C-alpha cells in the first residue's frame, strides 16, 4: 500500500514537471497555432543558460539564475522576428517545419558552443529527499510540482483577467479578429515565445536539480507532449490534471508493469494514455472545443 502511494506520488510529481514544460508548449501554440517541435531544445538552451550564468561565470546562485531567466526571455523574444516574421500568411505547415528547423539549429548551436560533454547543473534546491514515514520524494520535483500548480493558476488568470493576457487570448482565438481589434498578432507571438522560453528554463531548473545537463535533456520535450495534447493545447489550467493523470499512470506502470515485462514499458505509457483519451475526446480534456450550436 505504502509502495502504491509512493509510486503514485512520484509519478504525479513527474507529471507536474511535464505539465510545466508543456506549459511553454501550450503558450506558444495558443498564440501562433504552431506545434513547436523544438520544445525540448528550449529546455536545453534554458538549462545551459542557467549553467553558464551560475557555475561557468561563477556568479552567486540566485543572481545567475535571475540573469538566466532574463537571457531566456530575450532569447525567446527574438525567435519570432528572426524565424517567423517572414512567414506571416504562410500555412501552419510551413511554420511547423520551421520549428523542426529550429530544433536542428538549436541542437547544433548547443553542440558547437557547449560541446557534447556532460556538465554539472547547479542545485538551486537542496538535493536531500523529502521523507514522510516510509515515503521518499525528490525534493526538486516536489517543489517544482507545487510551483507548477501555482504558476498554472497565475498564468490562467493572466490570460483571462489582465489586459496583455486578454490580448494574447484574442490572438489565440483568431488572428484576423485580433488585428481588426487593433492587436498586433506578431507581437503577441513574440511574447509567447519569450514566455515559452522562460517556462522551459524554470522546467530545466526543477528537472535537473541534482542532475547534470547534456543536449540529451531535450527528450523531456517529447515526454511532455502527451500532457499538452491531453490538456487540449489551449488550456493552461488543464495541464495540471492532465499532468497528474499521465504522471500517475506512468509511475504505476513503472512500479508494477515494468518488473513483469522486464523492460521500460512505462516510457511509452504516457503516449498510450494519450492515444486512448484523444480517441474518446479529440479536443483533449480541457481544450477549446469547436463551438457547435443547434
Amino acid at each position: 500500500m505504502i509502495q502504491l502511494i509512493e509510486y503514485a506520488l512520484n509519478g504525479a510529481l513527474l507529471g507536474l514537471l511535464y505539465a510545466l514544460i508543456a506549459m511553454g508548449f501550450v503558450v506558444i501554440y495558443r498564440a501562433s497555432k504552431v506545434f513547436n517541435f523544438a520544445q525540448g531544445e528550449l529546455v536545453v538552451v534554458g538549462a545551459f543558460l542557467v549553467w553558464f550564468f551560475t557555475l561557468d561565470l561563477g556568479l552567486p546562485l540566485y543572481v545567475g539564475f535571475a540573469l538566466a531567466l532574463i537571457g531566456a526571455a530575450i532569447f525567446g523574444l527574438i525567435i519570432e522576428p528572426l524565424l517567423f516574421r517572414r512567414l506571416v500568411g504562410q500555412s501552419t505547415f510551413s511554420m511547423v517545419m520551421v520549428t523542426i528547423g529550429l530544433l536542428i539549429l538549436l541542437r547544433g548551436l548547443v553542440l558547437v558552443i557547449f560541446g557534447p560533454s556532460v556538465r554539472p547543473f547547479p542545485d538551486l534546491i537542496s538535493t536531500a529527499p523529502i521523507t514522510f514515514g516510509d515515503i521518499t520524494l525528490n525534493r526538486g520535483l516536489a517543489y517544482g510540482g507545487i510551483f507548477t500548480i501555482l504558476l498554472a493558476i497565475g498564468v490562467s488568470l493572466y490570460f483571462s483577467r489582465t489586459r496583455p493576457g486578454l490580448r494574447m487570448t484574442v490572438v489565440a482565438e483568431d488572428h484576423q479578429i485580433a488585428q481588426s481589434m487593433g492587436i498586433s498578432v506578431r507581437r503577441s507571438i513574440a511574447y509567447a515565445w519569450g514566455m515559452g522560453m522562460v517556462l522551459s528554463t524554470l522546467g530545466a531548473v526543477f528537472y535537473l536539480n541534482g542532475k547534470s545537463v547534456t543536449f540529451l535533456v531535450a527528450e523531456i520535450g517529447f515526454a511532455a507532449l502527451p500532457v499538452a495534447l491531453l490538456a487540449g493545447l489551449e488550456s493552461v489550467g488543464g495541464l495540471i490534471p492532465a499532468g497528474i493523470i499521465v504522471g500517475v499512470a506512468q509511475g504505476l506502470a513503472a512500479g508494477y508493469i515494468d518488473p513483469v515485462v522486464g523492460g521500460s514499458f512505462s516510457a511509452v505509457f504516457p503516449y498510450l494514455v494519450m492515444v486512448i483519451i484523444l480517441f474518446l475526446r479529440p479536443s483533449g480534456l480541457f481544450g477549446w472545443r469547436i463551438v457547435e450550436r443547434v
Partner: protein
Amino acid sequence: MVAGPGARPGGALTEGASGSAPSTESSGGPGGSPLLELSNVEVTYSGVILVLKGINIIVPERGCVALLGPNGAGKSTTLKAVSGVLKTEEGLVSAGQVRFAGERIDTLAAERTVRRGILHVMEGRKVLEHMTVEQNLVAGGHLQRSRDAKESLELTYEYFPRLADLRGRTSGYLSGGEQQMLVIGRALMARPKLMMIDEPSLGLAPLMVEEIFSILHRLRQEDLALVIVEQNTAAALALADYGYVLDNGRIVLDGTAESLRSNEDIREFYLGLGATGERKSFRDIKHYRRRKRWLG
C-alpha cells in the same frame, strides 16, 4: 461618447446634395467636411483579381453612409480596404487613395487603423467564441486607459442591456442576434471615430433586425461616423443620410438616402422593391438592359 437624445448638431450631411436626382457620374458625394475619403480606389486580390475598379466614396464627420448592391459587388472589399483587413487576405489597394482625417491610410495594417479610430465590424458576427461576453468587451477596450475602459463598458451595457445579462456567458453559444450586438458593442468599446458595419441583419429574424437597427439609430447620436453595408436596403436607407450603390466593383449610383428611397428604378432593380413596396426577386428584372440605361 456623449449620448443625448436629439443632441446632434447640424447633421453634417445632405444639405448640399438633397433633392438632386441620382446619377451615374459621381455627384460629389455628401456634403460636410470629409472624415473618410476614398478616391479612385482599386483593389486587387492575389495580385491579379481586380475587384474594385476605381471607386469614390466620402463619409463626413458624424455622417452615416450606406453601401448597397448585389452579392459580389465589392461592398465588403471596400470596408476591408479602409480598415486594412484586406492585407490579411492577400488583397491590396493597387491604385487610388484612402484618406482618413486628412491622412493616407491605405498602406496601414489593420491593427494600425484601429488606433486611428476606425473600427470594422466584419461580416459574419466574429465573436471570440471561447471567451465570455464581458471578456470580448474588455478586450475590445484594450487600447483605452483602464478608467475609460470601465466607463465604456458601462455605456456599452447601457446600449445593450441584453449583453449585461449575458456577461458571464461563453459568446460562442449566444444567439445570432446577441452575437451581432456583441460585435457592435466590442467595436464601441474602442470609442471609434468611424464604425463600419458589414451586414448586421444577415440571417436575423425581423424583430431582432429591428432591435439592432434601433440601436444603430441611437448610435447616430454619438460622436461617430457610420458606414453600413446591408442587403436590407429599406432599413439601411432609413438609417443613412447618403447611399452608394455598387455593382461589379463600380459605383453605379449614389445620392441622398431620401432620393434613393424614392427613385423608382432603384427600388425595382437594386432594392428589389416593387412600386407597392413588396419585394421582388432580382431574377424578375432584366438586368443588363436596365444597367445600360443608367450607364448610358
